[in-house]
């Protein structure tokens, strides 16, 4: 097997083992309800994490995701409350806005050669600040179209339900997998993560790709915000605090190298599900502090970072061994 696939294999293995452990303790964990819930409850996180995967594979980071989700919710509610636009039109405007927002950050990162960390940090303040300005209250969305969207689900055997947003997340992942692994753009993203200078020498349009990556992340954060607003049927400027961290964690647990250049969109899905699984387990148990979630995720992060580190140094050692056979 290609050693680069090892992190992905480990992720899948951990997921399966964890699920088996959960099942052994709580047989209900393997019901379609729980599986449907895993998809529905983590839909917004999953969609945002797809964008984050691209950003991280390219060697960057996007801290603005959670704030953009909050902004999206507030923007939609305010637009639906104060104008007579159809939700679909609002969605279109909003996705245009968040895509532009992401593109602008990408532009600043590329043109001003500033670290993505700081640029997207400012973006994080800005997006949440704009959300506050639009409305500080949690405003409910009562549009009939919203209710219709929420009522769409496919009942699985065993009363589990695959909701619209859960399905949408799977679609986004499918789209992400194709985009990452089956398009020239995807190859360029990996190329940037492998080394900007080399990528430039090999003819990758660095500026265009950088802007597109952050625009994509902005777009998916907006989509994630729409999903979040469907999930809670409200817009709230304090919502989705820290989602960017969850997304980063999911991406790393999914086997993507935080230093860029290597990763799997599919792995991110498993990463999201692992995190959802931990939460579900803790709720099922009912006596553990919910904060164990954070500690377990921290530990998983450590495990994965060490694993990747180990793989890298292993590859290095192999190479230097080869070199020592020299002359």
């Amino acid at each position, binding site marked *: 097997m290609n050693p680069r696939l090892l992190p992905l294999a480990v992720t899948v293995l951990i997921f399966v083992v964890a699920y088996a452990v959960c099942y052994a303790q709580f047989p209900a964990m393997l019901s379609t309800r729980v599986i449907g819930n895993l998809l529905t409850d983590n839909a917004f996180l999953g969609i945002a994490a797809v964008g984050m995967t691209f950003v991280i594979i390219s060697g960057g980071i996007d801290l603005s995701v959670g704030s953009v989700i909050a902004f999206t919710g507030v923007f939609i509610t305010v637009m639906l409350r104060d104008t007579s636009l159809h939700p679909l039109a609002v969605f279109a405007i909003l996705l245009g806005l968040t895509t532009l927002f992401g593109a602008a950050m990408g532009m600043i990162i590329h043109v*001003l050669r500033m670290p993505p*960390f700081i640029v997207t940090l400012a973006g994080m303040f800005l997006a949440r*600040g704009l959300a506050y*300005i639009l409305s500080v209250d949690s405003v409910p969305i009562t549009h009939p179209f919203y209710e219709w969207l929420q009522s769409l689900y496919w009942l699985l055997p065993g009363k589990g339900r695959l909701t619209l947003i859960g399905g949408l997340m799977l679609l986004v992942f499918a789209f992400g997998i194709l985009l990452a692994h089956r398009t020239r753009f995807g190859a360029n993203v990996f190329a940037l993560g492998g080394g900007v200078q080399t990528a430039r020498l090999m003819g990758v349009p660095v500026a265009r790709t950088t802007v597109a990556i952050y625009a994509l992340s902005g777009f998916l954060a907006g989509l994630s915000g729409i999903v979040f607003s469907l999930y809670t049927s409200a817009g709230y400027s304090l919502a989705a605090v820290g989602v960017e961290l969850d997304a980063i964690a999911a991406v790393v647990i999914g086997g993507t190298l935080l230093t860029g250049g290597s990763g799997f969109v599919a792995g991110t899905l498993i990463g999201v599900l692992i995190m959802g699984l931990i939460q579900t387990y803790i709720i099922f148990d009912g006596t553990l502090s919910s904060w164990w979630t*954070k500690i377990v995720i921290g530990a998983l992060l450590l495990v994965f970072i060490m694993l990747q580190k180990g793989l890298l140094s292993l590859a290095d050692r192999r190479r230097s061994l080869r070199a020592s056979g020299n002359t």
Partner: protein
Amino acid sequence: MNGTLARFGRRIAPQLVTLAVVVAMIGIVFPGFFDISIANGRLYGSPIDILNRGAPVALLAIGMTLVIATGGIDLSVGAVMAICGAIAATLIVDGYSLPATLALSLGAGLLCGLWNGLLVAVLGIQPIVATLILMVAGRGIAQLVTEGMIRTFSHHGFASLGSGNLLWLPTPVVIWVCAGILATLVVRRTALGMLIEAVGINRRASMLAGVNARLLIVTVYMVSGLCAAMAGLIVTADIRGADANNAGLFLELDAILAVVVGGTSLLGGHFSLIASLIGAMIIQAINTGILVAGFPPEFNLVIKACIVLAILVLQSPALQGAAMLFSRTKGQP
């Protein structure tokens, strides 16, 4: 000596000017801003509030500056604040003496720093990744320490760390100013500052010149942990309770911002603790200014974002490069 002073003045001039502009703007919107009186045996007024409320970020900025100077970053400081505050409150409630409580919680901060430092310096993990682990897990640990409650206490000695007075000033002000002076003296009166900068600029060359880069990097993360512990103690003492949920939430970002606003490059190298501290005060002045001016607090973040963006754009390497090119072409026609 004069040359050094002048250079130092030039170094912190942008930060001082920014601070002055922010303060002047608050003064315009809220004329009573500059009133300072003595009440209850201490100075009292909005400027003092800025100094007081800015204490946690100022303390964090001290450690963060040193970490960033080595080319690293410490995302875990907010979580470390929560951990140390939780430990301190729990210990004092359990009847430990004040010195023991302080020593143990500061020790916990050092330990957190040691963990980060080892990951970065010995295992060679990227700083942003290494400290992310403790950032995610740390708050959970703090919650476990407090068992999910706000641990309140009524130990006056400890509480005075947060709300007492010393030398006509709130204790936190005295603490961060002293910590700032002490840190500045330690890095500038010893060779520490120079060695840290050398490691941050060129780690390999520094090591070949005999600098113990590994030890130095572990040390700065430990200092950062210690500063975070102090900040956590102050926050805990201030409200007489450990709030594992909210203590230090997102303060790591403010601290990084303070350092960047203070003009230290995120890539490492030359640093100025004083400029970072002024940066921390700029951020707090914006926060306090919005409060006393009666603005709705929702503008806080947007104003902050705009100021930060402006400062960052002015400091960006691309623009500086352009400016240098411009001045060079002007210098040699």
